[in-house]
């Protein structure tokens, strides 16, 4: 009996209206993010089976391979589109044909097969983002597998059945096709597989979102705790009754939290950079990837770092101003801990979505919802800088500036009025008609 009384009291304290409200919002946000991911994966898996092919060899053999591939794709729900490439300027050709990838059967392919040589097949893929889902293409693997099988059966028919197969030809049967991959980024192309580009860039770009995440969480937590503690200790009342402008009070809090956060950022940036370069330096040295990434424009120069830094700075200011508003709602340090959750979610969701999905290719409704979260633009900043999406980048900065001004205005209005002392969330006290103290 006594235990249950205690348990009831503890539960009541921990499970206040504020906690429940935030839990509901979190669930809705996470369900939304999950649905978005699921839709994108569905869409992606459908398109993964579609193949665009260009037969430059144009022999009876390649014609038969393409026809058989078409039939197989139709059976599995995919589609085969045949195109004609006019030149090997792949960026231009992909744009002209409005396609993102193409499997090329080069001239001399049949000759190579007949000579029992490993036949070359090319695969060209255009990258528009570093999102994992947008760069998945199992269709190319299907095509490659199918072409390999066709080559194998030809060799088998010609050589094995009439008993003229040599030892090198037997070895060749294990790997009858050589895949040459080319990656296109904007107007540049380079002989490197998109998966290699993706893994290298992902590792390099992992630093910015992680730092962002740490910075936003750290600075928000600081501001929220400061305001909650000042409210509880009533030092805020002392401060706000002093002859000092409210703007100075807010600015000092934001600037100090921002400075400490920036200090943290520098320390983390150095540490993370060292850690990531431990991985990437070795990989680059082995695969000579550095030059390829540079040729594709996928390395961050001073200008790019400056642009990303600017968006990071804006994001931190936004997080701080939102925290000021949330801090005004906090009843105490415990409720401040709960109030950080909306910031955590609005940082986590765009971070995860931008990692897996190319936001430019998702449905407009989802895209606008995700773009409405101001932190999204910073998570996308390095990609936008590298892929030359200057329109989205500038739009993002303008949106962040507007968002910041709105938040700062709201925060200032709260601090200028008595709402700073009267506003709470889920903390409604039962009052007598005239009770105020």
């Amino acid at each position, binding site marked *: 009996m006594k235990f249950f009384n205690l348990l009831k009291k503890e539960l009541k304290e921990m499970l206040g209206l504020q906690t429940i409200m935030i839990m509901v919002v979190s669930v809705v946000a996470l369900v939304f993010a999950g649905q978005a991911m699921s839709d994108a994966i569905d869409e992606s898996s459908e398109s993964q089976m579609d193949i665009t092919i260009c037969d430059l060899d144009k022999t009876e053999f390649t014609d038969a391979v393409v026809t058989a591939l078409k039939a197989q794709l139709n059976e599995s729900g995919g589609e085969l589109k045949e195109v004609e490439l006019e030149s090997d300027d792949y960026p231009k050709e992909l744009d002209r044909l409005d396609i993102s990838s193409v499997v090329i059967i080069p001239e001399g392919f049949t000759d190579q097969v007949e000579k029992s040589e490993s036949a070359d097949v090319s695969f060209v893929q255009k990258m528009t983002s570093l999102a994992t889902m947008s760069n998945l293409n199992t269709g190319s693997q299907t095509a490659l597998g199918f072409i390999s099988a066709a080559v194998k059966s030809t060799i088998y028919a010609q050589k094995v059945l009439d008993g003229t197969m040599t030892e090198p030809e037997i070895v060749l049967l294990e790997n009858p096709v050589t895949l040459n991959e080319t990656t296109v980024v904007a107007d540049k192309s380079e002989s490197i597989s998109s998966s290699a580009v993706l893994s290298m860039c992902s590792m390099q770009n992992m630093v910015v979102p992680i730092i962002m995440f740490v910075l936003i969480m750290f600075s928000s937590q600081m501001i929220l705790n400061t305001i909650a503690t000042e409210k509880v200790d*009533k030092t805020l009342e002392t401060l706000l009754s002093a002859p000092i402008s409210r703007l100075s009070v807010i600015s000092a809090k934001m600037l100090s939290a921002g400075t400490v956060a920036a200090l943290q950022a520098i320390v983390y940036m150095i540490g993370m950079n060292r850690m990531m370069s431990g991985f990437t330096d070795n990989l680059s040295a082995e695969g000579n990837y550095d030059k390829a990434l540079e040729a594709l424009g996928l390395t961050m120069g001073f200008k790019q770092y400056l642009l990303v830094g600017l968006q990071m700075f804006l994001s931190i200011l936004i997080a701080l101003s939102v925290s000021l508003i949330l801090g005004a709602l906090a009843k105490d340090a415990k409720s401040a801990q709960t109030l950080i959750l909306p910031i955590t979610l609005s940082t986590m969701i765009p971070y995860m979505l931008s990692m897996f999905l190319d936001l430019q290719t998702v449905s407009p409704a989802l895209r606008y919802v995700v773009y409405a979260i101001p932190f999204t633009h910073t998570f996308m900043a390095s990609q936008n800088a590298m892929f030359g999406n200057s329109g989205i980048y500038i739009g993002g900065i303008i949106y962040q500036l507007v968002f910041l001004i709105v938040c700062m205005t709201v925060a200032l209005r709260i601090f200028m009025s008595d709402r700073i002392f009267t506003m709470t969330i889920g903390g409604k006290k039962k009052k007598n008609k*005239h009770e*105020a103290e």
Partner: protein
Amino acid sequence: MEPIKVLEVKGLSKQYKKGVYASEKVTFDVKKGEIFALIGPNGAGKTTTIRMIATLLQATEGDALVAGYSILTDPDKVRRNITYLPDEAGAYKNMTGRSYLKFMAELYADNKEQAEEYAAEGCRMCELGDRLDDKISSYSRGMQRKLLLARAIMSKPVLAILDEPTSGLDIINALEIRRMIKNLAAEGMSFLISSHNMLEIEYVSDRVGIIAKGHLLETGKPSELLEKYDTKNLEEVFEKAVNAQ
């Protein structure tokens, strides 16, 4: 010659929602060098009234003038003429007593010399001696309250607003603080204090205002009120005033 009024409260009200008044049409004044006390039980509306005068809460009706400046239209100028000590207030626990007084002095002073002067006065007033160089987190409740009171009066404001200045203090500390308030009032500083300890108020204040359920029921000198209600102490005055309402 009529004494100078440093505070004129005119029909001040705070309505939280329709029909729910924390404070309703409160009117009184405080003269230079006077200690005016608002007395009433918890929840009577004392703190709400005081916080409106300290420009922390916005009045929904009425106005108050501090040194001639309106809390509605000139809150910045009002803040230059007051100091406010909230009930149960704390200080920045990571600071030492001395650095806290210096920090607060800099907020109230117009220049560095004045700030140093205020801080020195604060250090003298709080009588904490060597403990001033210790962290506030190590202070007892009484020491902290003395420090905060010194902070509130070191700049010699036109009006010092003290909410329950001796709450939670032992008899010795409470007596010291009352004595300090009386001495400063004798030097010309004005005080608006609130308390539910009516015996304390009887000793320290020049005039009192009895407040209950948001209404100011009576104002006058303690001796006048005792005579009017034919009682021996302010507690009985309060009881009779509330019953007569």
